[in-house]
């Protein structure tokens, strides 16, 4: 199959969605001629016009609010927030409006919007342009949260997000934009709420989200050379979360590491770990759960510091050694 980048996969999904459904339109800062903050909407305004691919003023609250109003009244807006950090400026509309309306109106209104945004560190963009705040949104009933880790998932999940009748927060990772993957050239959807076993293994499960999936796969390769067989599970969607796939894997391997790029404190890894701890599987574990996440600091700009602020392949390998060394009880 042909290989395209994560960025192209997203562009293709948007293109196909615009072609498939008249109600779909895009809005955001610089998404027209400029092609979006990272190029995801490149060429789409030329193809679909300024009405359906709308440049907006720098007004995050209005971009989100317009999306809410349009979604409630029959359209299917896909809004771009240039950097995920700017979600703070749009927060009221996403958290108090988009997430709440279906419930507050007892199901009589739907808010089918997609918020696409570029998240994560690794570009030296410092503390206000590098955050992984997806956990914030995962804490809000009414929102769905997706974090695709490769091009194939990105395209299929974006199609699913656009077709979904709920507000969906779609977290793209800046460093993943250039990664290549096999992607069908036809539209397809991946169900929201289905985790994916990215690699099968026997001795240990790594549950990894977003950018950490590739690092986990790399670490698994290296561990294999030492005779440790690692299974890598990618939840893909934080809400709804496919706990079954995660627990099934751990039941098999009986050892687990959970890794996120986001800050570890009060983070999503705590959610996954708690689900494991609350399940009967916890009694069968051969080692305590190990949790890796970003350091509890604002993201520094300097390259070495930045790299140390998030889990790397080496830290994962250390964790693998630690977990494997635990004596069986």
């Amino acid at each position, binding site marked *: 199959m042909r290989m395209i980048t994560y960025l192209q996969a997203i562009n293709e999904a948007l293109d196909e969605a615009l072609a498939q459904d008249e109600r779909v339109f895009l809005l955001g800062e610089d998404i027209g001629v400029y092609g979006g903050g990272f190029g995801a909407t490149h060429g789409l305004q030329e193809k679909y016009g300024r009405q359906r691919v709308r440049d907006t003023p720098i007004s995050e609250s209005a971009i989100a*609010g*317009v999306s809410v*109003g349009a979604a409630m009244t029959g*359209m299917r807006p896909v809004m771009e927030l240039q950097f995920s950090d700017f979600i703070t400026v749009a927060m009221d509309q996403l958290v108090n409006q988009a997430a709440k309306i*279906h419930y*507050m109106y007892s199901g009589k209104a739907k808010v089918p919007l997609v918020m696409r945004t570029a998240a994560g560190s690794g570009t030296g963009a410092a503390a206000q342009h590098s955050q992984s705040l997806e956990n914030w949104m995962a804490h809000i009933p009414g929102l*769905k949260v997706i974090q695709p880790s490769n091009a194939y998932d990105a395209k299929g999940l974006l199609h699913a997000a656009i077709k979904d*009748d*709920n507000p969906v927060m779609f977290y793209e990772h800046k460093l993943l934009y250039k990664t290549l993957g096999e992607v069908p050239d036809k539209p397809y959807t991946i169900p929201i709420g289905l985790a994916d076993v990215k690699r099968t293994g026997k001795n240990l499960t790594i549950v990894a989200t977003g950018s950490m999936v590739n690092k986990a796969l790399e670490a698994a390769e290296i561990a294999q050379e030492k005779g440790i067989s690692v299974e890598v599970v990618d939840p893909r969607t934080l809400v709804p979360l496919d706990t079954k796939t995660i627990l099934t894997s751990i039941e098999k391997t009986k050892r687990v590491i959970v890794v996120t790029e986001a800050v570890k404190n009060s983070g999503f890894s705590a959610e996954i770990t708690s689900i494991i701890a609350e399940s009967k599987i916890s009694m069968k574990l051969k080692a305590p759960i190990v949790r890796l996440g970003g350091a509890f600091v604002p993201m520094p700009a300097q390259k070495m510091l930045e790299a140390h602020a998030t889990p790397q392949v080496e830290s994962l390998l250390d964790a693998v050694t630690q977990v494997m060394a635990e004596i069986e009880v």
Partner: protein
Amino acid sequence: MNKKMVNVQQAKVIDKRQALRKMWEIRIFEEMIQELFDAGELYGTMHLCIGQEATAVGGAGILKKSDWIVSTHRNHGHCIAKGTDIRSMFAEMLGKKTGTNEGKGGSMHIADLNVGNLGSNGIVGAGFPIAAGAALSAQMQGTDQVVLCYAGDGATNEGSFHEALNLASIWQLPVVYFIENNQYGMSSSIEQMVNIDKLSDRAKSYGIEGITIDGNDLVAVSKTVSQAVEKARNGGGPTLIEALTYRHKGHSKSDKLMYRSEEECRQWQENNDPIIRLESELIKNGVQQEADIRQMEFTIRKEFADLVASVKSDSEPEIEDLLTHVYAEGEA
């Protein structure tokens, strides 16, 4: 700039007798929920719009059913004027399953999409961009719908006001922003909170028309709103209307009214009550007799008392209802 010159047809002339009835419905609805509250029968909060009935009826009341309103926490008048079922509103206030929102919204979130009521908001200023979004929907779908967005004077100091007005202007959206300037945001008088005389002047910064009117004059309100609505319907873009009015009651149930003088309240209540003004005009011009009006008032009170009595025996939501409607089912 993409502004179009639009010839506006004459304003819709409001039927004053019907309008008076609606205004009384709003007032009596609120008097009754106040009584229910005082009697300990009503849980939660509410923000009464007594004294502001002309902005509700002269605004939402002149729209087509297919037009939309976006409302605020002080919403009962807007909802009733737009045609929301009053029994369901009482039921919502009383936490019944038969309420507009099946008990999940309460006073501040009453919505009824079937009559063009896109819902009321508890976040001050949040409606501005949502209204722009609904207007964008209408524009993109090629319908002739217009959105009337209510907000208070205090709400114009939120960032969302400025973002939404600018955006509505550059896209020439069919939306009318309607500020009910009742002089206060909770305890803060608008005079102390902005350094301009007219809130409608803010429209200038966004290249849209701004108008300040007497919000207790039903005819002035309906005329101005219907002109703005027809302009919007015909591609003329948004308008900002500021209607000067007054809320007779406190901000909400907890308000001790320490921030304004009794004299000021009395002035507005005695000399500038929109209902009394309209009644006097109708009586003076021989359109309606005092006795007929009192009869109408009595009838509404009776009707509403019956509604409340019947709503009281409606069933409440079940515990299972707690978890429904968090997510919409299915795909597009």
